[in-house]
Each structure stands twice: as C-alpha cells, then as structure tokens.
C-alpha cells in the first residue's frame, strides 16, 4: 500500500468513472441479464419472454448435441494446447544451445501470432482443399483415402486444430527457448556429473524448472482455443460437417443469433461462465501446488 496519497475527495471517483461505467454497462448488466434470460424462452412470434424456470437447462442437459459440443470443445482445446506445447517443448529442448542469432529466430517465430484465427483458417482451408490443396495432393500418392473435410468430421477437426496450432506454435517455441536459456548450465552439468542421462536430466531438472513457462503458455493456449477460435470455426467449417466442429462458443452463438433462441443461448452462456470460474479456480490450485518459481 502506498503511504503517499493525494488528498482529494472527488477526483478519484472521476478517475475511475469511465472504467466503472463501461464495466457496469457491458459486464455486470450482461452477466446478470444472461442469468435472468436463461430462465425464459421467447414466445413463438419472438415478441415477449415466457418464464420457464430451469427449462432451458433441463433441455440442454438432455440434449446429446450439447454434450457433443462439450466433448468437441475439450478435445479441440486439449489437442491444440497439449500437442502445441509438447512439440514446442521437445523442439526447444533439442535446440537448446548457446547459438548466435536467437533474436532473429524469435522474430521469425513470433509473427504468426498476429494473424487472425479466421484468416489462419482460410489459409489452411486451401492447404486442405480436397480438389486443389497441396496436402490432399501429396497424400494421394501415399493412400487412396479421401481426406475430404467437407465430408469427414475428423478431417475438419484436424484442419481447425492445425490452423490453431500454427498460429500459436511460434511463440510457444519462442517462450520455451527463452525459458531454457534462463536455466543455469551448471545445474545440468552437475546432474550430468552425477550420471544422469539426457532424458533423466530433462524430466528431473529442465521440465520442473520450466513449469512457470509451461503454466503461462498452458493458460494462454487454453483461453485461446476455448474462446478466440470462434472465427476459425465460423469462417472455415461453420461447425460442420454435421456438428463435428461445433465448439461451445459457436453453438451458443448459433442458437442465439441464427436460431434466435435467446434463453437457450443465455443458458449456454451461464454454463460457460461456471466452466470458466471452475477452470480458473482449478488453475490457481494447480499453480500453488506444482509450479516451482
């Protein structure tokens, strides 16, 4: 706490007023309104709201399509996060040496972060394009299997996973490289003298010492894959084929703004909020226990 404070009765209120106004209007009001709306459904003509209690939640929890979305979201986020981080960590560990030009590499790794998920998706859409794309063309020499993501759900899922990882991969790698550079060489040498092999050294020393970096990247990638990939799904697969790529945010948007089922969409928002709160809490519990600083 600061000891030096400016004595002024009204100025602090004026200073926090803009932020407070925006927060109340666009955070608290919508959040509470979501809670309220989730208890209603629109009348057939959409002109008034009918109170139905927990009806929307009952409907959601008995809808297999909603559970498919839950599964899709978790599988998608887990693939993007775990695969993206594991490969980045592996490459960073293999590339960990005192070399010149690290700053140049960093620049060449960081730029994809600036590409919008939707644009990344459009580029990969063409790479995967069944008729003209380079990837199906190359695969056609190896197998006769049709990697047509217009028809096959799992190929569509792979497409959006690859596009998402592509956008994130460079800075995952850049952050791991920076993290590794910060580990003192003497620690690893000491372990080496004690007879620890490279794999043992990695799991006993490097990985635990990198846990703050991993935790940081894990949070960043989870948030990204859960919430910021809507554009990727919307621009590329429209949730399809079928609903094989309908992640939770996409379904909430579709039911609310295309299906015009406001209450149903609001109920999904409420469940998403609970999910975020639970994940955040779990994250902090985990951080306290496992992350070594």
């Amino acid at each position, binding site marked *: 706490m600061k000891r030096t404070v400016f004595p002024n009765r009204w100025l602090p*209120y004026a200073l926090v007023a803009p932020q407070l106004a925006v927060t109340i209007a666009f955070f*608290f009001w919508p959040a509470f309104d979501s809670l309220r709306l989730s208890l209603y459904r629109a009348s057939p003509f959409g002109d008034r709201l009918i109170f139905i209690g927990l009806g929307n939640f009952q409907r959601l929890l008995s809808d297999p399509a909603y559970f498919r979305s839950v599964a899709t979201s978790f599988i998608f986020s887990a693939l993007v996060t775990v695969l993206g981080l594991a490969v980045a960590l592996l490459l960073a560990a293999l590339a960990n040496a005192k070399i010149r030009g690290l700053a140049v590499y960093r620049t060449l*790794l960081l730029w994809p972060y*600036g590409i*919008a998920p939707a644009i990344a998706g459009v580029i990969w859409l063409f790479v995967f394009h069944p008729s*003209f794309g380079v990837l199906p063309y190359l695969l056609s020499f190896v197998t006769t299997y049709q990697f047509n993501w217009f028809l096959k759900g799992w190929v569509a899922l792979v497409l959006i996973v690859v596009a998402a990882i592509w956008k994130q991969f460079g800075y995952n790698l850049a952050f791991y490289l920076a993290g590794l550079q910060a580990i003192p060489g003497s620690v690893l040498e000491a372990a080496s003298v004690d007879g620890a092999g490279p794999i043992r050294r990695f799991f006993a020393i490097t990985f635990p010492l990198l846990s703050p970096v991993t935790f940081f990247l894990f949070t960043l990638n989870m948030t990204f894959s859960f919430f910021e990939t809507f*554009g990727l799904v919307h621009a590329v697969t429209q949730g399809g084929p079928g609903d094989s790529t309908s992640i939770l945010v996409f379904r909430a948007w579709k039911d609310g703004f295309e299906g015009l089922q406001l209450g149903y969409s609001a109920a999904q928002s409420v469940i*998403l909020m609970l999910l975020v709160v639970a994940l955040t809490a779990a994250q902090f519990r985990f951080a306290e226990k496992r992350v070594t600083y």
Partner: protein
Amino acid sequence: MAATTRVAAAVATAEIAGRLATPRRDMSGAIAHVILIASVVVLAFPLYYAFVISTQTLDEVTSLPPKLVPSTNMLQNYADAWARAKMGRLLLNSAIVALAVAVGKIAISLLSAFAIVYFNFRGKQAVFWMIFITLMLPVPVRIVSTYQVVSVLGWVDTYWGLTVPLLASATGTFLFRQYYQTIPDALAEAAQLDGAGPLRFLWSFLLPLSKANIAALFVILFVYGWNDYLWPLIVTNSPEMRTAVIGIDSLIPRTSQLPEWNVAMAAAMMVLLPPVVVIVVMQRWFVKGLIETEK
C-alpha cells in the same frame, strides 16, 4: 601412490571429456540451427503458399500438381479483391476499431489504476473488485446479453457499438496498477513538495515513466481489436460497418462457386498484413505485453 594414480586418472578422464565435449558442443549448436530453421520454414510455408496463390490466374490455382512459385496475375487479383469486398472501407473500419480499442482501453485503465494506487476513497475496495472480476469472464461467454445492451443504447451498426463493449476488461488496469506500485513513494512526495497536483503528477511523471507499458499494451490491444471476429459479426448488419476479418468472408469460394482462391488469398494477405507488421516492428513491447497481460 594410489592417490597419484587416482589424480592422473581424473585428469585423463577430464582430458577425454574435454576433447569429446568440444565437438559435441559444436554439434548441439548445429542441431539447434537445423531445428530452428526447419521450424521457421514450416511456419512460413502456409503464408508463402497463400501469397503464391494470390499471384496466380484461376487456371493456375485449379491445376494439379499445385504450382508453388509466384506467377504474374498479382496486381489483377489484388485489384479484384479490393473492388469486390470494398477493401478500402473494411480496412478503414478495422483500423478505427483497433486504434479505438487500444487507445480507449489504455486511457481508461491509466486513470483508474492511478485512482486505485494514489488515492484513498470510500468504496475503493468495492471498485477494485468490480473492475478485477472482469478478468474472469471474456466477452464470448455473455454475447446475447451484451448485444441486448448495445441495442438498447441504439449502438448496433455503429463504431461505438464495435468498440466500447470491448473496453470492459481489467487487463490494462491490472498492468498499470502493478507498475505504479513499483514506483517509489518518494517520487510522489517530491512532486507534492514541488506543489504539483495529482493530475500534474500523472501527466508529467507517471505518463512518461509508463511509456514501455503503454507500448506493450498497445501492441496486444491493436492486434486483439483488429482480429476480433465474434463481436463485430454480432454487432454489425450493414456491409459498410463490417471489419476486414469478417468482411472478406464473401470472397471465400464455397463449394458451388467459381474457385477464385487467388482473389480470396489476395484479400487474406491484405487483412493479415497490418497486425503482423505491428508485431514485427514493435516486437520488444509485444513480448513484454504478452507476459504482463497474462500475469
């Protein structure tokens, strides 16, 4: 005798280890370069591919095997994309949104963090928690209701509607609060002794000191504002108010359409360039921003 042997053995081992270590260290350097260059090339390939497509004619785009070298139709494709999607307007909208979100959020969070750190006032704790709880819930989890608020205000299809709701987050406030707390109290004391009021202190002392943090936040927010997809999709109806990331959707060939991927990729290149340039040019602040805003 035994001791001398042991010492000699140790020296010999060290010598062998030393001889072996030198070439191994060189090897690890070479391996590192190979891995990093491979990563950079693999990362750059899709972008290169998209650029190549954006320079080809329709015949070249649809021919197999795929052609991976630039062709001659570049200007035509970019002109087509520009005219068909009204790119001028789209890019202007994106620039307005990205700048307004960045500048707006920096301004309001500088002020509120200043109030929270440098003043005591009734209700400070409540204000603090009201602002910081927003860190918990990102915009996508409250879309329907936020849209309703904006429509009550009559802000649908306006720049106000596109930008102001995105300001309701505490990342900036958090960053500036953390930073202000590291500034020694003596600075504010000295300013007060010199007769500087709080606003003078903010303007002449805190603001110049916060330059690096402002730049860091600017990069993150500019990229966020430019690339955001869900909110502009919901809050705009007319093509004139669309931002670039969603406005080029009409150029992406769907199954039944002429596969003019060359034009679509030309549009994609124009949309992705500004945020990528901002990141490359302001790289130092970008890395700082990434770390600080996620803390």
